[in-house]
C-alpha cells in the first residue's frame, strides 16, 4: 500500500510543478515579448526630415540634346518648383537652345556639295522651350559617402507639357516655329545641404520637325520624334528650415 501512495504524492508534485511552469510560460514570455516588440506596428520611417514639403525650388540647369545627328542643342535655362507635398511638386522651366553643329553636319555639307555645288546643309534645332510640369518623388533616401558625408537624395518623375520653338540653320526648311509639345522625364536630386541640391535628369519631348534638308536643299519632311535631353542643374531651396514628419 505504501508503495502505491508514494508515487501518487510524487505525481501530484510533478503535476503542480508542471502547472507552475505552464503558468510561468504564459506570464513571463508575454512581458518579455512586449519589451522586444516595442517597434511592432510602428511606421517604417519615423520623424523623417522633409527636404521638399512646402518649399520653393529654383534651379539653374544646362541641357544637352541626345541623338541629334546634325545639330546638337545646348540648352541653358531655369526651373522652378513648388513642392506641395514631400512627394509632389508643380512647376515650370524655360530653356534657351544654342545650336552646335556636329561633325556629321559638316561631313554631309562637304560631301554632298561635291556633286551639287548649290547645296547648303541645313538642319533644325530647338530655339527655346517653355514647359510646365508636375513631378512625383516616389523614392526618397539617404546615403553616407566615404563613411563621413551624409547625403539625402530622391528620384523623381516628371510629366511635361508646353510650347517649343523649332529653328533652322538656314531658310529652306519650312515648318519651323512654335508648336505644342508634351513629354516625360525623370532624374535624381542629391542634397548637399539643406538648401542646395544637384540635379541630373533625362527627359524626352515629342516634337514634330524635319531634321534637315535633302540633297536638293528641300526640307526632308517633318515627323514627330522623341527628342531626348540630358539636364544637370543646381537647385536652391527656400525657406532654409526643414520640417519633420510625425
Amino acid at each position, binding site marked *: 500500500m505504501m508503495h502505491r501512495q508514494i508515487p501518487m504524492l510524487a505525481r501530484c508534485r510533478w503535476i503542480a510543478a508542471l502547472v507552475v511552469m505552464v503558468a510561468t510560460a504564459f506570464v513571463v514570455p508575454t512581458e518579455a515579448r512586449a519589451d522586444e516588440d516595442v517597434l511592432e506596428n510602428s*511606421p*517604417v*520611417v519615423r520623424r*523623417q526630415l522633409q527636404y521638399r514639403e512646402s518649399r520653393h525650388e529654383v534651379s539653374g540647369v544646362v541641357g544637352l540634346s*541626345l*541623338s*541629334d*545627328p546634325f545639330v546638337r542643342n545646348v540648352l541653358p535655362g531655369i526651373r522652378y518648383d513648388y513642392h506641395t507635398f514631400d*512627394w509632389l511638386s508643380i512647376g515650370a522651366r524655360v530653356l534657351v537652345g544654342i545650336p552646335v553643329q*556636329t561633325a*556629321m553636319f559638316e561631313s*554631309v555639307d562637304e*560631301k*554632298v556639295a561635291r*556633286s551639287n555645288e548649290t547645296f547648303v546643309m541645313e538642319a533644325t534645332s530647338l530655339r527655346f522651350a517653355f514647359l510646365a510640369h508636375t513631378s512625383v518623388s*516616389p*523614392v*526618397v*533616401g*539617404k*546615403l*553616407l*559617402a*566615404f563613411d563621413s558625408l551624409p*547625403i539625402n*537624395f530622391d528620384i523623381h518623375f516628371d510629366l511635361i507639357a508646353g510650347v517649343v520653338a523649332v529653328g533652322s540653320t538656314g531658310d529652306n526648311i519650312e515648318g519651323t516655329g512654335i508648336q505644342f509639345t508634351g513629354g516625360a522625364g525623370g532624374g535624381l536630386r542629391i542634397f548637399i545641404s539643406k538648401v542646395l541640391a544637384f540635379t541630373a535628369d533625362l527627359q524626352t519631348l515629342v516634337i514634330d520637325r524635319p*531634321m*534637315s*534638308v*535633302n*540633297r536638293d536643299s528641300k526640307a*526632308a519632311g517633318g515627323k514627330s520624334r522623341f527628342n*531626348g535631353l*540630358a539636364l544637370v542643374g543646381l537647385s536652391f531651396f527656400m525657406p532654409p528650415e526643414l520640417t519633420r514628419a510625425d
Partner: protein
Amino acid sequence: MGRFLHRILVALIAVSLCGWSLPVAAQAADEPAVKAKPKKHLSRRERRARRQRLSRELARQGEAELRKSVRVFQQKHLVKAGRLELLVGGAMGIGDSLVQNYNADVGLLFHVSDRLAVGISGSKVFAQKTEHFESIQRNFGLFPERSFVQGSGFVEAQYSPVFGKFASFGLAVLQLDGYLVAAVGGLRTTTTVDYKPAFQFGGGFRIHMLRAVTLSFELRDMVFVESFLPAKAGGDPSQNVMQHVLAGVKLGFWIPPSFSYKYQR
C-alpha cells in the same frame, strides 16, 4: 581672597561659554526649522511598494543613462565581403545618333571586401541602324561606314564609396550601395575581325533586394579606337575614337546565398 578669585574665574568661564554658544544658537535660528518627522511605522505592503517605486525610479534613471551612452547602428542588409556575385542583365546605348546598341550581359564579381570587387564581364551586342542612318542614305545619297560592335569582354574593378537606404511612400526601406567601375578588355566590330582594346568606366547603384539577390542600375561609357576606310584610295585608314554610352540593368545572384554577421544584433 581665594574664594573671590575662584568666583571671578567661574564668571569668566561662564561668559566665555555664552560667547561661544549664543552665536551658534543665532545661526541655527536663521535656518528653516526642521521638524523631526515622527517615525511612522510602515506596514509590510507599504515597504514593498516603496521598494518597488524606488526600483522603478532607478531603472528609469539607468535606462536614461544608457540611452545617452549607447548608439544604435543598423546592420547592413547585405554583407558583400568574400562572396561572389553572378550578374545577368542588359543595356542599351544612349546618345548614339546613327547606331543603336542593345547588350546582353553576363558577369562574375568577387567582392574582396564590402567596398572592393574584381571580376569579369562579357556582352553580346545586338546593334542596328537608326532612322537617322537611313535618312542620311535616303536624303543625301551617302553611305556612312558602319561600325557595329558585335561582342566584348572585360576585366573590371568596382569600388563602393556610398552606402544608404531609401523608402517609397513609407512602405518599405531598402538598402543600396553606389559604385564606380573601371574595366579593361577587348571587343570586336563589323569593320575588322581583329579584337580591339577597349575601356569602360562608369558608375551605378546596387539595390539590396534580398540577401541573395540584388538589382543594379548603371551607366557605362565604352571607349575604343576604330579604323575606318581611307578617304582616298591608297590612303591610310582614319582612326576615330568611338564612344558608346550604355545604360544597363543587372540582376545579381549572390554565392553563397546566405551569410552570418560578425557581430550579432
